[in-house]
């Protein structure tokens, strides 16, 4: 119901929205919760386990009941707190966890079955038969219990992430936070003031308090006006600081667009990482409930929510309000409501010495023992002095006291301290380095106390940064002491609720203790108390107190569960903003990329690079046809392919040769200028790190190539070896991978093609290199081959790459040759038994790949000592072999090898397959793999089995070099 003249909503701007398909009206400035209250909607959701009708409990982000689905054009967001969701025109909200409708929910039978659904019921009930768990029980439970649902579609919403740095981060803009921000910002400190709400002010906007001689809300406006004039202060509203991390880093979630009508490019949320030299936590306090029978009926609310709804939104949830609580705060609530003309029927206070309140009946020493009204509160039963009586009421405000919002102080392992005086946990000093806690978050509940503590915390924070903050005049404000007598649960037989979100009752906690789950962490997991989206913000401390009572311990000894980030739910989409689809990883494109795509080549990801798979010709319907043609073309004419993705490291200095000797297994310092050598690199543990060629361009100048996959790894390795073991050597190196475009030209006509491109025949022996001029551009020519044919690689500066690629392609095509892609390149190298990282996958040694002789005996090198370890050599090792199927069958990488006749069990596996392909040269499928004692088993027959893909074929073991074993073509 709306109250005239109250609230901060804009009554000139009506807004329509739907809830469960029905249209309602609200105003700009409403939350979904306040608008539903204005429309007298009492039941807003069904509880998690028992499907009990539930209403709105709070006015803040701690809400356990009013969780709804927000349906947008691009997404459906479950478990949205109606108390946080602001109204906008066209907002579509749906209740959750009910079927077929909110008013009639078939699964409410669970509530009748409650005696069988107590704490831990699923651990006891669904024990047998064991195989039923996955197939029957779990799907059933998941259907019956659970909160909102997802659309099942891709979330097309826009999310962002951002970083911010500041001197002082103030978390929460209530009285303490505003004062802290003002104190620090006035002296020029770089301040961020973050507040969860749409409007700063905290409880000053909710209470009818006065600051100075003006209404608190006016004082807030004055402060905000001053803060807005200070360029060194950044105010972040709708921003919840969700986690405290090392080094003054905080996570925060800003609701950028959730309060607006969705439109393209409007970010929904932004996840901030804020780095602050100092921080002040002024997050206030959260009111807590008192457990009594059926205390979850719609209309039973936290007392502080009533003035909040009235003063911020101009709504009251009932016409005849009763209040029940164990502290003096209820008097202010009563006064505030009565001043607006709301009937307050009674205050029920369990304290015998409770203060009177003019205009209201105060039942002292009394307790509410029962609430009635399944779809909305009708009456309460009060017990006073041994007698019970009923009171008609449609709204009961309950206050069990206040818990300081100290969650962030626990994120770095801080453990809060129990205060008997406040009957609450309070933060310990220094729990988060650089953070001070002030105001209600620190157990200081009066407005005056909050203002003073906020100013003081800012002064102390600045002093720690070597800055002096001037004195700030503290305005007059209420300074009443906080008086409370703990009451957690009213004794009774019925079910009294602690955790509304997860349906945990006082009995459940008692049962947990009775069954041995006496530690608070065990109780939590057994009952699921505090494990819902609200993380038990309104229920944890009461549950703890009930457990303490059941185990006969004091609360201080019982301790509390650990608060972990995030403080409120954070969508993964916001944390991972920008990292979806093409944003997941950078993309690296070759200079030939467009030319390749123009020819219809499908691109294959190779690390971050995109390389052409094959170049289809008209009439070819499968990749294999193109691949076979390209292989034959290289073997019979000439092929061109872009090999620029290989890592290129330019190494210079008088000690460069010595350095190469140390990182490669074989000798490099003796290599003449103008020659290239194949090199093998080990990790220090003796396994192969990478392989590649290294060319000596000059006496002190070398060019190393690495595999595409390991280019970064090798660079990092070289940096480590140099800096850790030989920093004094005169050698320097830099990655030039992206500075050069390099193209392989391979085949019997390779020399002719290179001659045509250079204008003269290259006179270069196998493994030679020479500077060349390519049509006026200085480049380099290497005679190296990864195909087994006579091969050259021609390198030019990157900016000439595309032109050279198109030129070489055109020339090749006039000679009966053309382009070849990754598929053909792979077949060509398998035919030659050349290794890639499929073979040197991190668990193979130089011995395994038949290169142990490449470990020079004349020098030390990285990995040399470990490569000689027992177990890394010998017949037991799986050694690289070739495999040829006895029948024409497609082979699969990952298949296992078995001796003939053995049982196909893991302990009989004698090896595995690493690379496969069809060789049009040999008219056979071929594979490379590793087989125990494989080099001694050439000619044997083994069984190749891939159970995942249904392959089971006999293969002949062979030398891995299938084609031109003597390398005559290579050296032609």
């Amino acid at each position, binding site marked *: 119901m709306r109250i005239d003249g109250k609230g901060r909503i804009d009554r000139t701007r009506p807004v329509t929205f739907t809830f469960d398909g029905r249209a309602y009206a609200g105003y700009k400035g409403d939350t979904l919760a306040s608008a539903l209250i204005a429309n007298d909607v009492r039941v807003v959701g069904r509880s998690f386990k028992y499907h009990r009708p539930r209403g709105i409990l709070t006015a803040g982000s701690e809400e356990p009941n009013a969780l709804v689905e927000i349906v947008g054009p691009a997404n459906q967001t479950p478990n949205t707190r109606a108390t946080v969701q602001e109204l906008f025109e066209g907002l579509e909200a749906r209740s959750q966890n009910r079927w077929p409708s909110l008013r009639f929910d078939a699964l409410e039978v669970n509530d009748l079955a409650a005696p069988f659904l107590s704490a831990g019921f699923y651990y006891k009930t669904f024990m047998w038969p064991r195989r039923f768990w996955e197939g029957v029980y779990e799907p059933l439970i998941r259907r019956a219990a659970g909160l909102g649902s997802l659309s099942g579609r891709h979330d097309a919403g826009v999310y962002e992430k951002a970083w911010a740095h500041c001197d002082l981060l103030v978390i929460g803009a209530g009285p303490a936070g505003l004062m802290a921000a003002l104190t620090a910002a006035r002296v020029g400190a770089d301040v961020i003031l973050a507040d969860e709400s749409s409007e700063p002010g905290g409880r000053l906007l909710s209470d009818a308090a006065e600051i100075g001689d003006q209404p608190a809300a006016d004082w807030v406006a004055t402060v905000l006006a001053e803060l807005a004039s200070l360029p060194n202060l950044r105010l972040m509203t709708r921003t919840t600081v969700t986690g405290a991390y090392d*080094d003054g880093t905080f996570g925060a979630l800003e609701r950028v667009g959730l309060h607006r009508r969705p439109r393209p490019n409007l970010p929904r949320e932004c996840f901030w990482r804020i780095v602050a030299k100092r921080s002040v936590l002024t997050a206030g306090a959260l009111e807590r409930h008192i457990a009594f029978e059926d205390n979850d009926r719609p209309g039973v609310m936290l007392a502080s929510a009533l003035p909040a709804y009235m003063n911020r939104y101009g709504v009251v949830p009932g016409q005849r309000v009763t209040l029940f609580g164990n502290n003096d705060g209820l008097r202010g609530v009563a006064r505030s409501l009565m001043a607006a003309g709301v009937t307050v029927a009674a205050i029920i206070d369990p304290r015998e010495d409770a203060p009177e309140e003019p205009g209201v009946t105060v039942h002292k020493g009394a307790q509410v023992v029962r609430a009635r009204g399944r779809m909305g509160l009708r009456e309460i039963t009060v017990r006073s002095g041994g007698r019970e009586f009923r009171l008609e009421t449609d709204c009961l405000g309950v206050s069990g006291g206040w818990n300081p919002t100290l969650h962030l102080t626990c994120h770095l392992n801080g453990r809060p301290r129990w205060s008997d005086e406040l009957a609450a946990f309070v933060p310990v000093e220094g729990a988060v380095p650089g953070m001070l806690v002030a105001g209600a978050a620190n157990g200081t509940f009066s407005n005056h106390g909050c203002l003073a503590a906020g100013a003081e915390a800012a002064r102390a924070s600045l002093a720690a940064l070597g800055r002096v903050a001037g004195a700030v005049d503290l305005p007059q404000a209420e300074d009443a002491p906080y008086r409370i007598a703990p009451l957690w649960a009213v004794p009774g037989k019925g079910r009294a609720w602690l955790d509304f979100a997860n349906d945990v009752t006082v009995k459940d906690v008692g049962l947990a203790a009775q069954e041995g789950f006496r530690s608070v962490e065990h109780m939590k997991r057994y009952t699921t108390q505090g494990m819902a989206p609200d993380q038990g913000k309104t229920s944890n401390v009461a549950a703890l107190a009930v457990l303490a009572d059941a185990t006969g311990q004091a609360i201080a000894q019982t301790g509390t569960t650990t608060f972990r980030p995030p403080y409120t739910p954070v969508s993964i989409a916001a944390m991972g903003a920008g990292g979806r689809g093409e944003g997941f990883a950078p993309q690296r494109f070759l200079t030939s990329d467009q030319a390749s795509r123009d020819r219809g080549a499908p691109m294959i990801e190779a690390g971050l690079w995109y390389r052409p798979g094959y170049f289809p010709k008209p009439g070819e319907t499968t990749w294999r046809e193109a691949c076979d043609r390209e292989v034959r073309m290289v073997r019979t004419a000439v092929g061109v392919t872009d090999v620029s993705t290989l890592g290129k490291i330019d190494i210079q200095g008088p000690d460069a040769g010595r350095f190469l000797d140390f990182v490669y297994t074989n000798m490099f310092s003796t290599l003449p200028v103008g020659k290239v050598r194949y090199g093998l690199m080990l990790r220090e543990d003796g396994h192969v790190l990478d392989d590649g060629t290294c060319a000596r361009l000059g006496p002190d100048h070398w060019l190393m190539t690495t595999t595409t996959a390991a280019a970064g790894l090798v660079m*990092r390795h070289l940096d480590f070896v140099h800096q850790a*073991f*030989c920093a004094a050597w005169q050698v320097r190196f830099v990655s030039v991978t992206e500075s050069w475009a390099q193209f392989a030209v391979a085949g019997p006509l390779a020399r002719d093609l290179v001659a045509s491109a250079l204008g003269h025949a290259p006179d270069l022996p196998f493994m030679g290199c020479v500077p060349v001029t390519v049509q006026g551009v200085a480049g380099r020519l290497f005679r190296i081959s990864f195909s087994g044919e006579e091969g050259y690689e021609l390198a030019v500066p990157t900016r000439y790459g595309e032109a050279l690629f198109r030129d070489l392609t055109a020339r090749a095509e006039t000679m009966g040759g053309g382009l070849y892609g990754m598929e053909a390149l792979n077949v060509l190298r398998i035919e030659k038994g050349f290794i890639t990282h499929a073979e040197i996958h991190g668990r193979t040694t130089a011995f395994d790949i038949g290169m142990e002789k490449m470990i020079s005996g004349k020098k030390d090198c990285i990995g040399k000592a470990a490569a000689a370890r027992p177990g890394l050599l010998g017949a037991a090792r799986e050694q690289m072999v070739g495999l040829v199927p006895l029948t024409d069958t497609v082979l699969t990488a990952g298949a296992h090898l078995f001796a003939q006749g053995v049982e196909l069990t893991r302990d009989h596996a004698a090896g595995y397959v690493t690379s496969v392909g069809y060789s049009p040269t040999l008219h056979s499928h071929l594979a490379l793999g590793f087989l125990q004692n494989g080099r001694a088993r050439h000619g044997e027959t083994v069984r190749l089995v891939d159970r995942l893909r249904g392959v089971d074929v006999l293969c002949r073991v062979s030398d891995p070099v299938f084609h031109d074993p003597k390398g005559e073509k290579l050296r032609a």
Partner: protein
Amino acid sequence: MRLTCPLCGPRDRREFYYSGAAVALDRPGAEAPPEAWDDHLHNRDNPAGVTQDLWYHEQGCCSWLKVTRNTVTHEILAVETVGGDSTAGGVA
């Protein structure tokens, strides 16, 4: 987490590549017994407290850094380049 690179200043941990215990710096000589290599390659302490490990400023100056930090408090106690000045290192 942030590390103060001796060359670049304080930087977010995302700029760095982590590479395990600083034991990797103490390379046994070629003639060292197998036990020494075993310790160097495989055996690692898992201290609750001060530890030293290696970080590579991959998105910065490419320095390898020896970081002394506390695994319990997450304090960073020291960050040094492993190469030190040009007189450090010792395979030669």
